[in-house]
């Protein structure tokens, strides 16, 4: 009898989530290099993704950061202006660049 009860519980519980309420994804604070243009990065980039997503691309060329910014505009439809694109590229290249223009 005990066995049957256990089986019944298993069958019912299979319809419930392991966590039966909303989960919370924690906020992680990444070390951010402050400098000219960071406010623009904050306003345009961090709207959609974390700072970690940026810095974990590794040190990259100016051309790479420019193309990434353009990708966000063209493919992901981020409303980033021309002026801000330049500021963002410069900030990322200065702080997370590999020294190469291309």
């Amino acid at each position, binding site marked *: 009898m005990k066995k049957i009860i256990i089986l019944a519980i298993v069958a019912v519980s299979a319809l419930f989530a392991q966590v039966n309420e909303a*989960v919370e994804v924690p906020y992680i604070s990444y070390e951010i290099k402050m400098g000219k243009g960071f406010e623009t990065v904050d306003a345009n980039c961090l709207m959609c993704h974390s700072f970690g997503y940026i810095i*974990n691309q590794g040190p990259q060329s100016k051309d790479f950061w420019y193309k990434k910014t353009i990708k966000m505009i063209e493919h992901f439809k981020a409303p980033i202006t021309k002026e801000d694109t330049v500021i963002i590229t410069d900030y990322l290249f200065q702080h997370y660049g590999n020294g190469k223009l291309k």
Partner: protein
Amino acid sequence: MQRRDFLKASVAASAVALSTSAFAGITTQPIDSRKPSKIAFPEKKPLITYSDRPPLLESPRETFSRSITPNDEFFVRWHMPDIPTYIDTEAYRISINGLVEKELSISLKELKNDFEQVEVTSVLQCGGNSRSAFKPIAGGIQWGSGAMGCAKWKGVRLSDILNRAGIKKDAQWIGFNGSEKAIYYETPNFVREMKLDELDDHVIVAYEMNGEDLPYLNGFPVRLIIPGHYSDSWVKMLSNITVTKEYQSLFFMDIAYRVPDNATESETPEKRFKTTKPIAIMNVKSVIGYPTNETVVYHNSHVVVRGVAWDDGHGIKEVLVSIDGGKTWNTSILEKDVDRYAFRGFRFSFKPTTYGKVTIMAKAINRLGEEQPLAENVLWNHGGYKYNGIDTVTIEVV
């Protein structure tokens, strides 16, 4: 640019040129020095954390000393910042629509009761796993080798679901939507497509992972399982399946997750190959779970090297282990073959007879005779996809 800035930039540029010119377009071992974060994500142990929004978590090397990856150590990769953090299991439906005889809206209860239940043990690996091996640095998250795992998935064959809906004669493509959302309405949804003739009975809609509900971060309540294929199409929180005649041009199909369309799937940073193709099926690869690059052992003690090997489903024939930096290779003991798509565990025991650094390497060979290349022989591609170089760990003997 001001003159002073230019000087600074050119000094930096020459420093970089000096340090990397010898490695231009040459791969190395992936980065292996990262530590799990102090903060754990829901239903997870603390893992290596690249981003919280979207969540990007990597399993540490130690995870791969076992051939089943525990759910709380399983890597996480989402594409959009807004992922559902609560699912009403009673109300959840998977819609099947498009070129079908009868549109379906399947509840979780129906999925678990009205279809044949099947299981597959399969590796789930990000196409960009080990990307940090590529030099010059390829675009994308600089994963080490832990953007992967292997679990026993339980669910329902996708073909059974489609057969119940009845596929119309003209149908050629199946599109899959997950429930993750972008911030901007105009951002393309994360939709993946599969050619109908590529669908086999191993593709399932899974609701269980290693005997438990899927963790939220791995796609609760249901995700697509496509054994043998990289995980870019294993759509999480699967909510919609649309059958179409024409291929829909989609960002996540046309731009992301593609490699050069040539025999070696490679190119050079200076001369990118013009046409690309989807990353598709996995190549043969192995990773050492123990020891790690931080392991210290006593001289003449018993060391058991453990790791996992896999390919696209042909199966692993053997894993060779070297304890002298690749000069000689020894046969390892393979664990039981659980499933052609699963991690094949391997182990090799030895007694270090020298002091100081000892370099351990593992090389998998599949049933087709394909074997892993040395890291430096893995050819470069701009997305940093499909790295499968021979894994290397250096321990210290005292």
